[in-house]
């Protein structure tokens, strides 16, 4: 295994049991279906998908907040899916997460300083409270919450959304993780504040050489922020490549549609949009064959070829730009 890989996810499958009222398992929803990817140290990979694409399940599986059904997750060379109890808890400081909603992810009854210090206490960092306090204050400074001693006394409800997300970043980065999982870190924030948060994440990430899994529904944001993009559809990566290739030369019909509906101010009354009909199918009823064929414009344009219904395409192509489609044209 390459030691420069901060995260290696191999054959990850996450299933949820759908239970009836009596508690009997009725069926299984496969939120993540055999997904593999890796992120190099210091690299940012964006996972792009709509709700139901499995992007949050992947994040939660990596964070060990849900148990993967199959597959392995390796963070900084350590396989974490086999860990449990104390070993698992101790491994957690290597992979930290920024949650989407800063109004929900910070305990409203604790002060900002307590919130950041809690990370250190739980991880057993710092010998005394004074040491931890010092480190926590430095972390608050580093995320631009100054004067740190004063901001540290505040409670979450006394802060704006952007400031809260900075607290969450400080609480994660104070542990100097190897991997940061950022689940829609700016989608709840005002547009004008997004750049500040993203710049901060980028700066702290490059200072500490942290790999980042950036989860978003916003393809244009992924294009701007990430080093590499993986597009998810119904629990599967359908296309993966460099941002310029994904936006400039999307190969999968789903990616093509996503790119076409990106709102662009300068494209007033644009006509070339491909708006898919219907919605992502239920993950307990994944279509046979190519899972996208039920909504695929290419499938219809090609006269509904049987291959799309019969066989499940796998991710293939050059390593830097791979696509899971039987009929996408290779240059």
């Amino acid at each position, binding site marked *: 295994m390459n030691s420069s890989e901060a995260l290696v996810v191999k054959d990850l499958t996450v299933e949820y049991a759908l239970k009836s009222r009596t508690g009997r398992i009725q069926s299984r929803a496969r939120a993540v279906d055999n997904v593999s990817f890796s992120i190099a140290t210091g690299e940012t990979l964006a996972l792009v998908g*709509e*709700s139901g694409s499995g992007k949050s399940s992947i994040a939660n599986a990596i964070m060990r907040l849900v148990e993967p059904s199959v597959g392995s997750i390796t963070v900084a060379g350590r396989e974490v899916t086999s860990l449990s109890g104390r070993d698992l808890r101790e491994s957690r400081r290597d992979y930290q997460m920024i949650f989407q909603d800063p109004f929900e992810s910070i305990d409203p009854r604790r002060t900002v300083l307590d919130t950041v210090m809690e990370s250190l206490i739980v991880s057993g960092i710092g010998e005394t409270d004074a040491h931890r306090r010092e480190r926590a204050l430095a972390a608050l400074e580093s995320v631009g919450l100054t004067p740190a001693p004063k901001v540290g006394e505040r409670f979450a409800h006394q802060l*704006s959304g*952007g400031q809260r997300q900075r607290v969450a970043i400080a609480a994660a980065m104070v542990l100097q993780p190897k991997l940061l999982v950022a689940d829609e870190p700016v989608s709840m924030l*005002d*547009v*004008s*504040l*997004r*750049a*500040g948060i*993203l*710049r901060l994440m*980028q700066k702290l990430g490059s200072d500490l050489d942290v790999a980042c899994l950036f989860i978003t*529904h*916003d*393809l*244009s*944001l992924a*294009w*701007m922020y990430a080093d590499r993009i993986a597009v998810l559809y119904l629990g599967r990566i359908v296309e993966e490549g460099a*941002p*310029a290739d994904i*936006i400039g030369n999307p190969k999968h019909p789903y990616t093509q*549609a*996503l*790119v076409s*509906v*990106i*709102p*662009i*101010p*300068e*494209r*007033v*009354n*644009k006509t070339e*949009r491909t*708006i*898919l*009909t219907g*919605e*992502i199918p239920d993950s307990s009823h994944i279509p046979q064959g190519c899972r996208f064929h039920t909504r695929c414009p290419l499938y219809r344009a090609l006269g509904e070829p049987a291959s799309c219904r019969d066989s499940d395409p796998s991710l293939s192509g050059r390593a830097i730009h791979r696509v899971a489609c039987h009929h996408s044209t290779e240059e």
Partner: protein
Amino acid sequence: MNLLDVRNLCVRYGSEQTGVLAVDTVDLRIGQGEFVGLAGESGCGKTTLAMAIPNLLPEGATVVSGSVTFDGQDITHASEETLNSIRWKEISVIFQGALNALNPVKSVGWQIAEPMLAHDSGLSDKDALARARELLDAVGISKSRSSAYPHEFSGGMRQRVMIAMALACKPKLVIADEPITALDVMTQAQILDLLRSLSSSFDLSLLLISHDLSVLADTCDRVQVMYAGKAVESGSAETIFASADSSESAAHPYTNRLLKSYPNILHERVFIDGIPGYPPDLSLPQTGCRFAARCDQVQSVCRTQEPALIELHTNHFVACHFAEQVSR
């Protein structure tokens, strides 16, 4: 004549002494069949302004001054009775987050029929339901699903139902507050597409409120940008969203900074700009331009003198001392 003409409207939250002017002397005009977008960050007063039109302001908010003229009739201080005859029938509202507010124990068909029955006593249940089915068809839901319940629908479908409800009494104006915010990218595109297509079939005017300036670009004819309770710029979508090298483009620094807060995949891949700082606390007295503290082109006059909303070009209004010199 404009369908809607709001002039010098001031809306205050709280008392005269301690209250906050959430909307401060704002104009808003919507022509017959026009789609107008109202944009701005949270707390800028866009929802307050919109809700003042049919007088659906929350408790504690009052229209202090100014007027609302709808279809030639001054409804600023209209009686509750008059307003009730206007709401749904003339002006209908799609509230923010309303897609979770559908009644879970009634079929969607009935929920669409209900406002029709409430406003037209001559209408029979059967006719109202038949019309509800037609409306479902118009918003892209199969007629056969009119007996389905809200929980059987996805978020996008429920928003379609909300739109059908808003159209039930054939209103002239629909006010939609963040109608696509909670939806997926592809569903957002579907709903915006639907709104556009309805404009022709229903002879509709639309006030579309969004924090996301970019979604207004290909939906609206005209866009008004608000900041800290003030209208800072309004103009045609072509003007506001024109690239900087066009002869006429967005002229307020706030609008320009906001536009640069979105990644633009047609341009070079650069980090988005954003706007440093936060909007002012409106409970404190304001002097000068409200954007001055966050503006990168601020001059001394900006801090002392409030800029007036001037007509820079025909139908392009800007409130900035340096509107003519601002460059992107």
